[in-house]
């Protein structure tokens, strides 16, 4: 019942705040990784290099689906921005269904940019089905396809270090975010601007993907405060022997 209440409250807040945010401009705090990402998008177009967006190996049928969907939302925006480049972006995934959705998302980005004829289906790839197989395939892209930035958003474990190492060897900019704690620790040690925790889900809002993305950040903040108050309330109640 609590879960249903949380979901209903989230839907209500998302709806109300989306309507509200249409009228008032968003005020987002600066996250250096997104500033770098925004700059990288423009630079890659100018210097004729491509971006490699790695969506991780999160299956849409399990708990990692959220991070996979966040990665796809970001891919959609990047595809639209870079579709007219000489070297269009490449997306890699470690889950077949996610790979298919990556292709569809890339195509949607090209459609939105009005250049659907430039879309190549092999721009969305499944590079491997096991964690290390996926990382090895993604490393190959980073090393051999004139990539200027590796953007990793999705579910990554310790194998992220291999991809980070390959990027570092090629002097490729690396921006990484994972929903996995081990993956986050590895990316923190390996990247200049690591994204921690829920920052993974903020990419769309920072890249200007739409008002619903900004609204969902506000909803997350409200829910987080509710969780904090509940935890503090529980601790106080326990202290006074009410629980």
């Amino acid at each position, binding site marked *: 019942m609590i879960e249903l209440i949380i979901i209903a409250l989230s*839907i209500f807040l998302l709806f109300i705040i989306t309507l509200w945010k249409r009228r008032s401009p968003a005020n987002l705090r600066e996250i250096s990784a997104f500033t770098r990402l925004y700059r990288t998008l423009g630079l890659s177009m100018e210097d004729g290099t491509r971006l490699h967006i790695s969506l991780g190996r999160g299956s849409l049928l399990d708990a990692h689906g*959220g991070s996979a969907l966040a990665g*796809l939302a970001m891919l959609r925006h990047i595809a639209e921005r870079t579709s007219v480049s000489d070297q269009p972006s490449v997306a890699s995934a470690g889950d077949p269904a996610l790979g298919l959705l990556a292709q569809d998302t890339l195509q949607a980005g090209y459609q939105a940019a009005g250049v659907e004829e430039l879309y190549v289906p092999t721009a969305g790839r499944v590079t491997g089905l096991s964690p290390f197989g996926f990382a090895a395939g993604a490393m*190959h892209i980073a090393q051999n396809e004139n990539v200027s930035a590796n953007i990793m958003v999705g579910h990554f474990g310790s194998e992220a270090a291999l991809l980070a*190492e390959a990027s570092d060897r090629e002097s490729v900019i690396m921006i990484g975010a994972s929903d996995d704690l081990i993956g986050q620790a590895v990316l923190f040690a390996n990247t200049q601007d690591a994204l921690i*925790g829920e920052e993974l889900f903020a990419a769309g809002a920072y890249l200007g993907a739409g008002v619903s993305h900004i609204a969902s*950040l506000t909803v997350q903040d409200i829910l987080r405060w509710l969780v904090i108050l509940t935890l503090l309330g529980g601790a106080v109640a326990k202290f006074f022997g009410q629980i």
Partner: protein
Amino acid sequence: MRVFTAVIAIAAGILILGGYFLQNIFPALADVQTLLLNWAIIMAGAATLVGIFNLISVHTDKVRRREQGSIYSALLVICLVAALLFGMILRPDHSAMKVVMSGIIIPVEAALMGILTISLLYAAIRLLRRRADVMSFIFLITAVLIIFSSVTLPFANIPGLNTFGRWMTQILALGGARGILIGVALGALTTGLRVLFGADRPYGGN
């Protein structure tokens, strides 16, 4: 077409969500939920085959264009097709297939795991060169303390280090990890809701 796919996706999402929470009130929703999830599992299986063909198509294309590193692509395609064919003919539990698994695939993955260990150590050494801030110092010092508190030291145990390490992993790290996971869960919830109501549509075009 875009509206049609969105309607199907939103309806399927609402029915599955309803199946979780309202099955006591509407028992039929549980059956619909099971049916839709079974379809999703079957489609995920079919997607695996499509993914394999995508892999073959990408790498044959690289070989055809003689791109940089195409020798590895050729090797990958040959090994993949051979493993697929022999796996289908001999079946996965055949002794030859087991030899391929235990003699090639597992050692290669283990080797990558070994490389990963060195990569992580190297990343830790370079961390301060890459980003010399307070968080990096805390990260490194914590990592070193945890390592020293969990390994057997050759000279002698440092008094209190084991207790400190346990306190750090079971109180500080666990609390922090839970905080991060709650943030991730809230992010996944709002992302899922955006997809559920069609604000984000990672399917069927725009």
